[in-house]
């Protein structure tokens, strides 16, 4: 019997054995890594199941899964000059072209952290972005923002 279970950023039950010993094959049918474990599983403590990967488990108790957290991933960079609130460009010393049109960027600046969207025409030293809400000092770091939308696990259960 196969079933597909949605996995969110809060741990949820994906498989409950129907007998004392039950084998289950779990397949990550989503596009991001999910983490297996017990009811309190987190991305830090779970067993990673990569997209497309399957795992065959025996002697099962209830198995829970959770999606990873939102994160800042490559490319990253840092402001080489301060920028004012309502500014529409980020100035860097190099590698500005790594930030492409439409990419969502997280500016890591404490309580003034914010998300902006990259516009077209980035150069090595200038990255056009949607209007900033806050001002940021030179040296402030930023990087591509990856929102973890969860995923799905397909469960094939076999009683033994």
């Amino acid at each position: 019997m196969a079933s597909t279970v949605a996995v969110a950023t809060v741990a949820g039950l994906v498989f409950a054995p129907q007998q004392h010993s039950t084998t289950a094959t779990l397949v990550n049918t989503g596009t991001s890594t999910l983490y297996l474990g017990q009811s309190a599983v987190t991305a830090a403590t779970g067993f990673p199941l990569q997209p497309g990967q399957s795992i065959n488990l025996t002697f099962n108790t209830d198995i829970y899964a959770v999606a990873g957290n939102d994160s800042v991933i490559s490319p990253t960079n840092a402001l080489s000059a301060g920028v004012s609130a309502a500014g529409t460009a980020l100035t860097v010393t190099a590698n500005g072209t790594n930030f492409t049109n439409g990419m969502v960027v997280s500016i890591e600046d404490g309580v003034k952290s914010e998300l902006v969207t990259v516009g077209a025409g980035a150069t090595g030293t200038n990255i056009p972005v949607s209007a900033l809400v806050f001002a940021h000092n030179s040296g402030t770091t930023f990087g591509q923002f990856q929102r973890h939308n969860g995923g799905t696990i397909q469960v094939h259960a076999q009683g033994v």
Partner: protein
Amino acid sequence: MLSIPAAVSVATTGQTRLVGVPDGPCQVVLQNNDSANFVTIGDSGVTAGHGFVLSGGKTLSFTTYPGSRGMILYAVANTAAVDVSILISTPQ
């Protein structure tokens, strides 16, 4: 029950204690989380040239028989430290 110890960082030197396999029956799953580097798994004398090679990104699963004695597995990485995730499943 399901047990998921913290992932182990396997060093390139010496032998890193990977997992204590309990008395059987149990199922152990080992996953190399580094897609670019392999680890070699074996007993306390494992070396890169003598052991079971777990390639980058791959998973090894094995099940022990009822009554089999527990054991400790060790590992060594080839060119860079490698994180290995572990899952142990035993009857309730």
